[in-house]
């Protein structure tokens, strides 16, 4: 007992990551580096600072506080020299307007549960529960495992939100837990080379893990495929057909289509990360894909806050 993890956020009233009203726990750190990532500040496994330029009142307290001398403030707000930033938090301590904040907080499972339990009645009334997301939860196997057990003890259902990239045994173990109701599992691209180019890792491990989950009657029922769709990147007929073929082959049914949105860009910029701007498929294209998947016998829906 007593594992800790860097928690990016504990998002209450989460209605897009599984059924009902949920609380989503974001674990920091991800082995993938998707070019379109909408939570880019959650990729690095270590603490880092993020700026909210519009909140800056120009008081300069952070400039003085930074032991590295790495902060400058202009009319556009603060800038951090991220190459020298050790995320010591001195700037945050003096920034009353919260223009500079740490991305995450180190928490124990008990501390996370305290927040989770606040909304217990909402889960019960709505069929909701907790969603463990990230980052990538498979980087935090011990913590995730303990969190699931804690939820089980309280009778709270859990959704896992995973890229599927990680140790097969660990994934099978987590997904197999009785209180895990759904495994939200991404299909980002069907081609290994392309996948590697776009996310930094190939998809062989991911597909192998998906096959492993699907091979077990108990875990197969829990799989809920999610496809982030980016125009010109992974929304071609060829791609969609290949994904559908796989889902049908594995006997999967439920799939959500998530159109690309730009919400990650500001967060990338504000943590000093590179970013690329993509486009979402048109509403017509999303409909077309949705209809196609339905035609293949899949239970498909368009979800997410979309474009």
């Amino acid at each position: 007992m007593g594992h800790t993890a860097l928690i990016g956020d504990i998002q209450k009233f989460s209605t897009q990551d599984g059924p009902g009203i949920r609380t989503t726990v974001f674990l920091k750190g991800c082995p993938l580096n998707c070019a379109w990532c909408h939570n880019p500040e959650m990729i690095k496994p270590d603490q880092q600072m993020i700026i909210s330029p519009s909140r800056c009142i120009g008081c300069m307290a952070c400039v003085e506080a930074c032991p590295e001398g790495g902060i400058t403030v202009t009319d556009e707000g603060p800038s951090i020299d991220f190459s020298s930033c050790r995320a010591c938090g001195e700037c945050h301590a003096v920034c009353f307007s919260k223009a500079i904040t740490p991305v995450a907080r180190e928490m124990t499972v008990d501390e996370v549960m305290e927040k989770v339990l606040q909304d217990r009645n909402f889960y019960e009334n709505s069929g909701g529960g907790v969603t463990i997301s990230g980052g990538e939860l498979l980087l935090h196997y011990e913590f995730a495992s303990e969190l699931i057990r804690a939820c089980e003890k309280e009778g709270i259902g859990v959704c896992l939100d995973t890229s599927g990239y990680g140790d097969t045994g660990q994934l099978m173990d987590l997904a197999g837990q009785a209180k895990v109701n759904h495994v939200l599992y991404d299909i980002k691209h069907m081609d290994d080379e392309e996948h590697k180019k776009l996310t930094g890792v190939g998809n062989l491990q991911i597909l192998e893990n998906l096959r492993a989950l699907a091979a077990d009657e108990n875990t197969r029922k829990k799989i809920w495929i999610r496809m982030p769709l980016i125009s010109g990147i992974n929304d071609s007929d060829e791609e969609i057909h290949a994904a559908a073929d796989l889902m049908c082959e594995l006997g999967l049914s439920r799939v959500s289509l998530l159109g690309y949105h730009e919400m990650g860009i500001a967060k990338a910029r504000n943590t000093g990360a590179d970013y690329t701007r993509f486009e979402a498929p048109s509403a017509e294209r999303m409909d077309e894909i949705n209809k196609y998947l339905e035609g293949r016998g899949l239970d498909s829906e368009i979800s997410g806050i979309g474009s």
Partner: protein
Amino acid sequence: MITDRVQRLKDRFLSVKPNITPERLLLITEAYKKYSGEPRHLFRGKTLAYVLDNLSITIHDEELIVGVPTYSLRGALLFPEYTSTDWLMEEIPEFPTREMDQIDVTEEDKKIILDCLESFWEGKAIEDILYDILPEDTMAMYDNSIIDLGQTNTISGEIVPDYKTLLSKGLRGYIEDCEDRIRTGAADTLEAQEKLDFWRACIIICEAVIRFANRYAEKALELAEKESDMTRKAELLEIASNCRNVPENPPRGFYEALQFVWFIHLVYHIEGPTTACSFGRFDQVLFPYMQMDMDAGAFDEDKSQEILECFFLKCGEVIEVRDKYYSKGFAGFPMWAIIMVGGLGMDGEDATNKLSYMCLTAGADVRTAQPVLAMRISDKTPDDLFRQASEMIQAGMAQPGLFNDDVNMKIIRSKGGTEEEALNWNVVGCTQPQYGGGSSDCFPDAGYVNYAKCLEFVLHRGIDPMTGLELGLDTGDPCEFTTKEEIIEACKKQIIFLHEKLVEASRIIQIEQAKRLPAIYSSLAIGGCIESGKSVQEGGAKHSSAGLFSTGTANLADSIVAIEYAVFKDKVITMEDLIKVLDNDFKDNERIRQYLINVPPKFGNDDPYVDSINSEICNYVAETVQGWKDARGGHYDYTLMSQSMNVPQGEDTGATPDGRHAGDALNDNASPMMGRDISGPTATVKSVASLKPENFYAGALFNLRFDPKSVEGDKGIDTIENVVRTFFREGGQHIQINVVDDATLRAAQENPEEYRGLVVRVAGYLAYFTELDKHVQDALIARTAHGGC
């Protein structure tokens, strides 16, 4: 589906600006001259009868329900016996152009009105009389938004009459009842004599209302004779037949029942300047008449729906004229004409019926600000009724307001109601639960206390920093305080002190109202009045109560915690400097303001630390003031409710330690301070429920705003229902939900013409957004819109 007729009636209504006519002013002036010298009950009876007998009779084209307060559509009446000539004469010329709640008046009428007021009414209104006799310091508090005094220029006794009995007896039944009492009553003491006068006055008024209805019957016949369209001719003949029968006799079906209720309601607004005359459990009271149609094989659902919608549209035709200040405090011409549907029946089982659904449909069809739909929710509420309500909310209609049967019944029991009165509980006023069955007189608005001002008194040793007047208590040198408990104790003393001043004034107001303006007609159908031979003002109702309202409760709790963090804990500033910073409205101290906003926890985020301070203070005040008696022996009902008084009271309040700028609006009602609840709606509703609304005799009004995207689709409907059900399970009393995004509200601000039908929840009532003044609009936009992820 809205019919063409209803659409046309609605378009006509919305195309007309509220306006005033001199009609009632001139009639009441004649009546005052004619009946001067009569004993007060008879005087009141005869003057009202005179007005009713001489008001013009107008039936507008295509109407199915008839009866108007004056000849011009959306025309308001003047009540010089209540409203001070001082401000009327000063403000009437500005009515058509004032910032808020504009009212048209023609040049010709303006002259007639001003001449009449000047020649007869100066100093005669109860408002003038009260301002002369109320204690000077209390008046200074009133003038400076420290407290607000209610019912100084309105009728005391905003009511839900016993419509069930009214419909079953007809006014003829009331006349006979009074005649019996006069026959057998003694006249050997002054008190006994006054009872006789009361019953005689009741008879005079009932006869006048019957004549009033019959004049509508004659008018309808006259129009029918001239009418060439055979369909309309038949309609007019039916209207004539209805008005011959009701409200004198019990209705013979649903259509007549609606016409009956409309006449009764209309005359409340002719007797005195009043609001919050509600229809009670409309679906329960009126369904038997629909059943009558069904049994007779005469029920036509489409026709009944259309008549019901015509009735809904009528509800917007009565307006109260308010001065500049109250047009902000009660913004958007609210009348709080509430139609309650759903809830438990006398057998403890769900009592939803066909009319419950039809009322929701009518509200969705007409989408006007009046009437206001309210719905009782219990575990037994049918899913499809709840769903119909949620769909309306999702579509941004901002109604119905939702009430928790369980908690409201608990409140009625705890303030002495019988089990039947609890099961039959109802809203009187805005969202205040009262005894069911029409037995409660509610003096709903004894007044408002500004809680943020109480903290200003603590920090300035009883001096109001805005005016320099010493109007609060000296609770010691705040710079000597070292714990939050000391601040809390000092605040409690200030709050109770202001409540005492308010209550002292409210008793004087009640007594003067009883002495001068007993509202005979409004008392007639309140359980207990005829039996006791007394008006509600004289304590005739079976249950009397008076409402004590609170403004800025969340600002106070947030501020106390902010001081604790800044001064005692993190020591970023001394108390002395903090007070200076507040007095300068954070000038050159934005950094401290950012600390105060962002570092200490705020109410509305499910943070038990700050939530419990809000709860502790409110519950302490409730427990104290609810033990007090009003001038009639009734009790005081505490409520977390500000209406939109948070705007004008905020204007006169300096900067507060929660980071709020001087003059900004205070938090509205029981809701968190605007923009400070940043943890999502589940956290917000839990915070509000943690205040323990069941301990407040008049409940806790809660506004929640959702971003439309967060409640889209079928899942969105489920989400709305789940949030409401969970809030109620946690102990919530009332919730109303606006689903509208900032962009829409801003666009409506920019282009009011295109959005004149946009209805929003202000407090316990709906208003046309574009008719609100900019300050109130801004306060609505500032409410946190909860989104999902």
